[in-house]
């Protein structure tokens, strides 16, 4: 397949692996955080760990939309679907994320709530058009990648006068999360494998502060295995040379200014929240979006009052530490027993982009072999 096989070429991968092995300085350890769950998934799915020298440690970042959603917001989704006569539309990954008291949207649906999995926010709009007598809520999650489509849908709903459509907005911002991780100071990071699709929207400039102010090189890269390998090589070169710059390895998709149309839509439809709660990172200032006042009529948080339980998290769950890169999945006491993708106790075990799910699904034979 053109544009797929090109970026999975075995010979090129082996060549990059050789170059990385030759480039790493003896006795030195390199800790690189791949921000995106897409990168975490690619590393696990293609077995890239086997191609990298032991001195390179990949730290899985928080770039998995359902993983960073705090329990209180999962509870809100469940409450929306169960306390009001609504059709709740959501991306599939959210269905099994545990909220307070082991509740989930999957269980709510089994108990009779009308919850529909959609591939796109446009499918949610179609549901709203087809059911004019029902309130249809789209539970919007994701980083800057999924935010512009939500903006388009709200604009479309406004243009059509679709009064039964609202959005429960949980869109979050990537640079704010990177800032929070570095400010936490508990994660040793020598550089970032930078987001790919997010960067296609926001461009490269938002990462300048991490190179300039924090001394962390950033290499924006794609989700294919050769992309990740090349980004690692570039990061090793930067660290060795003591350089800290933002490089764009993913130039086939990402431009320096990003997608101006998407940015304008986001600016028009959304307003920055003062702060937002993230699983693992806590309350992060200026890290998420809500609908702008001009579109408040489409804001589900304004339309539906919710009686929410006091959020309870499983104390033994280490998702928070895993999302900050402080712990590896296998360091969690619940990993594998009883927490598995079939029976997820933490969000990182749900999505295929979650660090725990990726490790359990693709990499746990290594733990067995080692242990």
């Amino acid at each position, binding site marked *: *397949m053109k544009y*797929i096989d090109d970026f*999975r070429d*075995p010979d090129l*991968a*082996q060549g990059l*692996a050789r170059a990385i092995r030759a480039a790493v300085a003896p006795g030195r350890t390199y800790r690189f955080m791949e921000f*995106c*769950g*897409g990168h975490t*998934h690619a590393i*696990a*799915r*293609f*077995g*890239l*760990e*086997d*191609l990298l020298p032991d001195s390179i440690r990949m730290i899985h970042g928080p770039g998995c*939309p*359902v993983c960073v959603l705090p329990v209180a917001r999962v509870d809100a989704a469940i409450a929306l679907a169960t306390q009001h006569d609504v059709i709740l539309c959501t*991306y*599939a*990954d959210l*269905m*099994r994320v545990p909220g307070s008291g082991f509740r989930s949207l999957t269980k709510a649906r089994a108990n009779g709530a009308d919850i529909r999995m959609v*591939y796109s926010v446009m499918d949610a709009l179609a549901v709203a058009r087809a059911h004019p007598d029902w309130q249809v809520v789209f539970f919007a*999650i*994701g*980083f800057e*990648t*999924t935010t512009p489509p939500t903006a388009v849908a709200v604009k479309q709903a406004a243009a059509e006068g679709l009064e039964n459509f609202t959005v429960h907005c949980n869109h979050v911002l990537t640079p704010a999360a990177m800032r929070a991780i570095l400010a936490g100071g508990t994660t040793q990071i020598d550089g970032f494998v930078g987001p790919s*699709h997010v960067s296609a929207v926001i461009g490269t400039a938002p990462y300048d502060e991490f190179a300039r102010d924090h001394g962390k090189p950033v290499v924006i890269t794609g989700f294919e*295995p050769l992309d990740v390998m090349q980004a690692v090589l570039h990061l090793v070169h930067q660290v060795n040379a003591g350089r800290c710059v933002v490089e764009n390895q993913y130039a086939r998709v990402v431009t320096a200014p990003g997608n101006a149309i998407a940015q304008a839509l986001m600016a028009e439809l959304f307003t920055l929240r003062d702060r937002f709660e993230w699983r693992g990172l806590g309350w992060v200032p200026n890290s998420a979006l809500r609908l702008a006042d001009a579109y408040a009529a489409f804001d589900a948080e304004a339309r539906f009052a919710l009686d929410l339980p006091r959020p309870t998290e499983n104390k033994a769950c280490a998702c928070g530490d895993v999302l900050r890169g402080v712990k590896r999945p296998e360091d969690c006491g619940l990993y594998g027993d009883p927490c*598995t*993708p*079939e029976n997820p106790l933490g969000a990182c075990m749900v*999505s*295929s*982009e979650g660090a725990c*799910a990726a490790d*359990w*699904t*693709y*990499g*746990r*034979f290594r733990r*067995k072999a080692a242990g």
Partner: protein
Amino acid sequence: MSGHVDMSHGAGGRAMARLIDTLFLKAFGSGGAPHDAATLDLPPGRVVVSTDGFVIAPLFFPGGDIGSLAVHGTVNDIAMGGAVPHALTAGFILEEGLPLADLNRIVTSMAQAARDAGVTIVAGDTKVVERGKGDGVFITTTGVGVVPAGVTIDPTSAQVGDAVIVSGTLGDHGVAVMAHREGLEFGTDLVSDACNLNGLVGAMLTKVPDIRVLRDPTRGGLAAALNEIAQASRVGIEINETALPLRPQVRGACELLGLDPLHVANEGKLVAICAPERAEALLSVMQAHDKGRDAAIIGHVIDDPSHFLRMVTPLGGTRMVDWIAGEQLPRIC
């Protein structure tokens, strides 16, 4: 044939008798004396019995329908026991309102599939449920077959060093049905691979009677089939990603939807495990058969106390291939 299924078609009266006579018996033939049960004369040997329920939506899909699928599914389960399938029974649960023309099409297709597989449908049952209590039609088939002398297919018998062979391209059925059901357009002519495999198995066992394990990777895909074998035989299995036969359309659809083709259902493929020295002979007889043209040796059995299925990726790394967890959840970014 016009009209719709109504409650009287399952009530035991004349309407039901007429439906059986004009539709089912016409297609399947009347199997001798009108008992409530069929009597079978089977050749000597161990008898294999298998049953399977079919609830596929939509009822008609590219490459098949629920009727042919209900025959292939059970015929193949019997064949995977190393047996020659002889007869099937069929139970129908019809939903009130199902067009009789659709039912006729399904039953006709079922009869054709049975003829193609060389089995007879010897007994059946029809029930009707109220509108909204079913999804058109559900079918359950039960099959009977006999294992020829000298054949022992045993899912616990895979041994370290054995070869793992698949009979053709993976994931065709699941992707074809999913694309059709969801209205996803991939600009392809992909059709389900649903077909009977007893002819292929017969040819394989004639040439290599000491095949150790046979399995058809249906729900859960090849990943489930090989994980089950690894667990049952208390071994590990290592497969090679570059050796997997995959149609470009299936690869493309799986890439787009975030699915792993190893988890996608097949309805006309099998996986065979045999001693390494028999692998080439088995492969050549499979490739010479119409239903095994794309057969390939994809891996081998290894020693692994954890009984994991692992796969060497094209890049030279290794990863596990697990059972699918829950439903297949598409990625969102």
